[in-house]
């Protein structure tokens, strides 16, 4: 091992520079292996094995039996590195695998996710994170339980956290299964369990400390894997060196092509759509900002739900408990957003360039307007239709592929782009490693959030307050294992799509936790009865509405569908919390003083390390 004077945290720059160079060296080595004739499957295996082994190694090296280290990484993570870890924690399979494909298939309305998932951090920075850091809690229910007092408030918060995070984590384990099965050519179910064992290795021994340092490593892999193909395509298609600047000419060209090819006019025939099942053809343009009030309202509500969800998802908020100070927590939110934007600013460019390479007849890789027979002969078309990701159906039997005859799953835009654009296989291996890193890092954070809430809040604070440190940490690890296995089991049933499950998780979180968290800091008058009413009423009404719309066949009210049910849960939560608080007694003096203290950065945290 390299000798580190002054310990690991003082040498982060050095450690991660060496790591990044090592990873780039590994990519070059894989390129040489491919060139010298090593098979694609072998390269896929090497990419996955190498990266997962590194993460597991970091996990083992960070093992700890100290509660402060286990729950909040010793509160010594510098703002920049916490920003990277948060970015990896945040960007899941949905961001890495599904986002660009969503923009490709669903066009401008889908970009509400980009706005919502970045703008939410303004709320995190200004309303929540610094105050909860000052508070000194280990988990989000820890704040709710202490601020409002009583086991019932704590239990409600634990319950909502578990439902929201578990919904989210099954989607991530599903993502690891998808990527692993594609890259390693193994059955999806086996891929799920391989992904899970990697995830558990990272988090079981070292808790938050291990997850933090693994997530930094995973961020580096995923951002390299996301950026390289886009830069490559932008240059290959001749639009310019930097895709972020070059994409606007490409958008103009795509809009021309979409009009010419009949996007929005040509819909698939009923039989073709039935044969394609859940796969979808292109129906909305890349820049179709509609002038209808309904379209605007749907954009607005999706942005709002995703923003409020960002500010209430415990696995994100708890990352800011690991910084060394309140000031560092605030800055760290800025760095998180910066690192997230590196990927989010690239996603629309990726969608646009992919569209161009499939639609533009002047580009060699284009398929629309070509004969069905020649398209079916392409290697990537065959491979991805074999695994059910795309389908070519000649609806009007003219032997030519039209825009409404090409059906696909959105995920393919990221995963298959290297093959569509004719890049070497080493790039596909890199993208697979990146997708795996994105899904694993988020699953790590989510599993930890659930296990910590159950071990700290449910077991230690509610069931057995006399438990000693060792027992608590052992309980935390056993719970982590059980929840991980349960998550993998549910994921292997493939109940929902990745994106559907993610949007639900956001709405569960904002329906139940958004107002109790914010008003806990910003409204001294908020009391226990109000918070409990807000949590139960908000979460309950949101969940009921979701059930009615999604499973009981109810017609959504004014466009509020299953992705946006926070629009029902949040107002109910706010109204109940305010009304019930005002109808009951105001909180005691000690609680009000506590709120005063979390509003200033100076002074000791309200909860100490042994709480």
């Amino acid at each position, binding site marked *: 091992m390299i000798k580190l004077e002054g310990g690991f945290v003082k040498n982060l720059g050095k450690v991660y520079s060496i790591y990044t160079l090592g990873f780039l060296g590994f990519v070059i080595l894989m390129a040489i292996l491919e060139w010298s004739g090593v098979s694609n499957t072998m390269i896929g295996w090497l990419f996955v094995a190498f990266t997962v082994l590194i993460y597991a190694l970091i996990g083992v090296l960070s093992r700890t039996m100290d509660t402060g280290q286990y729950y909040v990484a010793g509160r*010594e993570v510098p703002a920049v590195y916490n920003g990277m870890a948060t970015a990896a924690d945040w960007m899941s399979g949905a961001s890495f695998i599904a986002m660009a494909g969503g923009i490709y298939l669903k066009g*401008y309305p889908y*970009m*509400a996710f*980009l*706005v*919502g998932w*970045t*703008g939410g*951090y*303004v*709320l995190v*920075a*200004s*309303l929540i994170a*610094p105050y909860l850091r000052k508070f000194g809690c280990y988990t989000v229910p820890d704040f709710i339980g202490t601020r409002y007092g009583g086991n019932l408030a704590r239990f409600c918060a634990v319950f909502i956290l578990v439902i929201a995070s578990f919904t989210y984590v099954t989607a991530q384990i599903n993502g690891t299964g998808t990527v692993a099965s594609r890259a390693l050519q193994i059955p999806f179910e086996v891929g799920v369990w391989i992904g899970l064992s990697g995830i558990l290795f990272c988090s079981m021994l070292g808790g938050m400390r291990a997850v933090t340092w693994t997530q930094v490593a995973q961020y580096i892999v995923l951002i390299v894997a996301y950026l390289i193909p886009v830069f490559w395509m932008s240059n290959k298609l001749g639009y310019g060196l930097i895709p*972020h600047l070059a994409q*606007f000419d490409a*958008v*103009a060209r795509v*809009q021309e092509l979409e009009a010419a090819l009949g996007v929005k006019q040509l819909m698939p025939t009923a039989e073709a759509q039935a044969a394609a099942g859940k796969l979808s053809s292109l129906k909305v343009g*890349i*820049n179709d*900002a*509609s*002038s209808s009030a309904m379209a*605007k309202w749907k*954009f*607005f509500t999706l*942005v*709002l739900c995703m*923003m409020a969800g960002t500010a209430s998802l415990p696995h994100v908020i708890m990352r800011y408990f690991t910084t*060394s*100070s*309140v*000031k560092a927590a*605030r*800055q760290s*939110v*800025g760095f998180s*957003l*910066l690192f997230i*934007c590196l990927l*989010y*600013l690239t*996603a*629309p*460019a990726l969608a646009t360039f992919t569209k161009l390479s499939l639609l533009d007849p002047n580009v060699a890789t284009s398929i629309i307007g070509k004969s069905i027979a020649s398209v079916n002969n392409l290697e990537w078309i065959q491979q991805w239709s074999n695994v059910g990701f795309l389908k070519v159906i000649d609806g009007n039997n003219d032997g030519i592929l039209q825009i409404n005859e090409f059906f696909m799953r959105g995920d393919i835009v990221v995963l298959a782009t290297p093959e569509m654009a004719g890049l070497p296989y080493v790039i596909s291996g890199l993208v697979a490693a990146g997708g795996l890193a994105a899904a694993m890092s988020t699953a790590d954070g989510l599993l930890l959030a659930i296990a910590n809430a159950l071990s700290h809040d449910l077991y230690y604070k509610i069931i057995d307050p006399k438990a000693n440190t060792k027992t608590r940490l052992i309980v935390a690890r056993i719970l982590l294992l059980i929840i991980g296995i349960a998550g993998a089991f549910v994921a292997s049933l493939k109940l929902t799509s990745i994106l559907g499950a993610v949007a639900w998780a956001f709405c569960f979180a904002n329906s139940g936790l958004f107002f109790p968290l914010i008003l806990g800091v910003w409204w001294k008058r908020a009391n226990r009865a109000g918070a409990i009413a807000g949590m139960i009423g908000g979460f309950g009404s949101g969940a009921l509405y979701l059930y009615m719309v999604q499973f009981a066949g109810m017609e959504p009210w004014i466009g509020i569908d299953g992705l946006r049910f926070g629009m029902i849960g949040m107002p109910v939560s706010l109204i109940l919390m305010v009304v019930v608080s005002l109808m009951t007694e105001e909180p005691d003096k000690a609680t009000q003083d506590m709120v*005063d203290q979390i*509003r*200033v*950065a*100076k002074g000791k945290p309200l909860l100490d390390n042994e709480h």
Partner: protein
Amino acid sequence: MGGNTMSNKYDGHWKRTKSLTTITLVIWAFFGFAVHWFGDLLNSSSFPGAYYMAGQGSQIAFALLVFWFASRQNKIDEEFGFQEDEEK
């Protein structure tokens, strides 16, 4: 807390914090909601304005806003002597 100077200082700090937070949220609402409500008007034949604001403009605005907020809040804390002790 009695009517001493500590309490005045505390109230002054909280008042400034609240107004900074309000300004931050107004800018946030502008880039998060107002701009996109008029997305269709931003598009012209020469530039895809709606695509730009959702795919790039708002995101950059949010990132700058968070850094600006953090530095302003730190200044307020220092002005009132409420910044944390530098020990680590």
